[in-house]
């Protein structure tokens, strides 16, 4: 890790100013930044520690929405009783991520800005070619080991998966992120790689994320996050799904349903085609299976990751089934 200078920010404005300098990087939990500095991917000249700033860690849940400060820790949000009650998929996406230690360190703002786990991206010494790290240098993953690379939203320049779990749940429930006086949908915060895979979000230089907001809804309250991976815990998703639905008064017709996918796309992926296919229907096995296949519309396999095209729709099916069972048990009858 190259040496850098350390600045402890005294206000968000000061941090933002300092972050405009060349070579400056915001330091929150450090679980992405310091990791990448050790890999030689990040080489900040100055780190600006924002973890001691007051007023950016609040978690407030009202009847309309949850607002969460950028410095709230993953563990605090995961374990918050009102988040668990009104946004179970959000809580589960956090508690199924990383480890207890990492969740105590990592912040919500930093979480949204975590970088891909593409092994070529993380190893500049061995693999100089990476369009995300060094624009125009090529992509070492093409023709390489691609087991955990994306099948959706890729371009010829980059097929790196966005590895985050929380953002998948946020995208499902129309959450927004606030930075530099702006508020945008989390879905629009992320960019597709296209021919600029180095530009992952719409966040500008020196802009500080201040927090997120998740609107309350019946679907968010009745939701689940299912994560399938190579080992039982402490692993990124091979494929994951955030699902939430609201049924009509008849207790079986779908009034509103949200489906988003993780582990398979270059950004947190809302599966609107699946949602459209299920609204107004009942959640019978055949209907759910057929609809879930629509999640892979436009998917492109690149070698080892072909299995994700099979796996992801099954994860969606299982998530819907598990949630339907949970819903039936709560309402005291099977839908």
């Amino acid at each position, binding site marked *: *890790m*190259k*040496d*850098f*200078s*350390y600045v*402890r920010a005294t206000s968000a404005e000061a941090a933002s100013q300092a972050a405009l300098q060349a070579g400056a990087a915001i*330091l929150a*939990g*450090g*679980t992405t930044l*310091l*990791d990448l*500095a*050790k*890999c030689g991917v990040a080489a900040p000249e100055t*780190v600006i*520690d924002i*973890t*001691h700033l007051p007023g950016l860690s609040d978690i407030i849940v009202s009847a309309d929405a949850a607002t969460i400060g950028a410095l709230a820790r993953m*563990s605090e949000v995961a374990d918050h009783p009102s988040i668990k009650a009104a946004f179970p998929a959000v809580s589960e996406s956090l508690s199924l991520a*990383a*480890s*207890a*230690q*990492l969740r*105590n*360190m990592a912040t919500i703002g930093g979480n949204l800005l975590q970088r891909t786990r593409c092994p070529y991206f993380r190893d500049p010494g061995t693999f100089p070619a990476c369009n995300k790290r060094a624009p125009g240098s090529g992509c070492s993953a093409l023709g390489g080991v691609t087991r955990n690379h994306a099948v959706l939203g890729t371009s010829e320049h980059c097929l790196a998966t966005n590895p985050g779990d929380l953002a998948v749940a946020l995208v499902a429930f129309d959450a927004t992120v606030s930075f530099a006086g702006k508020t945008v949908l989390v879905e629009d915060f992320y960019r597709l790689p296209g021919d600029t895979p180095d530009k992952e979000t719409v966040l500008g230089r020196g802009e500080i994320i201040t927090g997120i907001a998740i609107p309350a809804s019946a679907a968010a309250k009745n939701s689940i996050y299912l994560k399938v991976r190579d080992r*039982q*815990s*402490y692993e990124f998703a091979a494929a994951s799904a955030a699902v939430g639905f609201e049924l009509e008064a008849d207790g079986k017709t779908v009034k509103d349903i949200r489906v988003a996918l993780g582990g398979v796309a270059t950004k947190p992926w809302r599966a609107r085609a699946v949602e459209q296919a299920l609204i107004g229907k009942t959640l019978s096995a055949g209907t759910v299976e057929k609809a879930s296949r629509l999640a892979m519309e436009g998917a492109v396999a690149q070698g080892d990751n072909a299995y994700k095209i099979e796996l992801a729709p099954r994860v969606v099916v299982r998530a819907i089934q598990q949630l339907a069972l949970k819903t039936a048990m709560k309402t005291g009858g099977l839908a």
Partner: protein
Amino acid sequence: MTRTIHLNLDINGRAHALDVEPRVTLLDALRDHLQMTGTKKGCDQGQCGACTCHVDGRRVLSCLTLAAQVEGRQVNTIEGIAGEDGTLHAVQAAFLEHDAFQCGYCTPGQIMSAVACIREGHAGSDAEIREYMSGNLCRCGAYNSIVAAVREAAEAVNTPVRETAEVA
């Protein structure tokens, strides 16, 4: 040019002054600058849990924490877990009782993680212990004994009696 910064760290309830480069992690500060080598370096990349310490009572990875970041916070390490008189912490005693290690390299991290896991209320069943201890890898595969030790310690420990410097 080497920059150094002066830090005052509160470790196990004692003040420690040191001059380090800003990039020095809490792990390296403990091991290389303060000769507190109980905290282990496994992967140095946040993947194994060997370096687990407590900051303000919460378990964290000292390999991904800068020493500079914890100035003004309370740090607790494996060296501060036993009582002043050397009486072992209930988790330490349970690890001995259950032979919850082989080479012992992961053990300080396992114990620091287990102390916090119990305090968080995440040691209610074997399945919960496995899930909430999954951030601590053991290359010797002592997992079954580790789970048994944490379960027994969770039953024995109702209040965190030993860590006087920490808030429950």
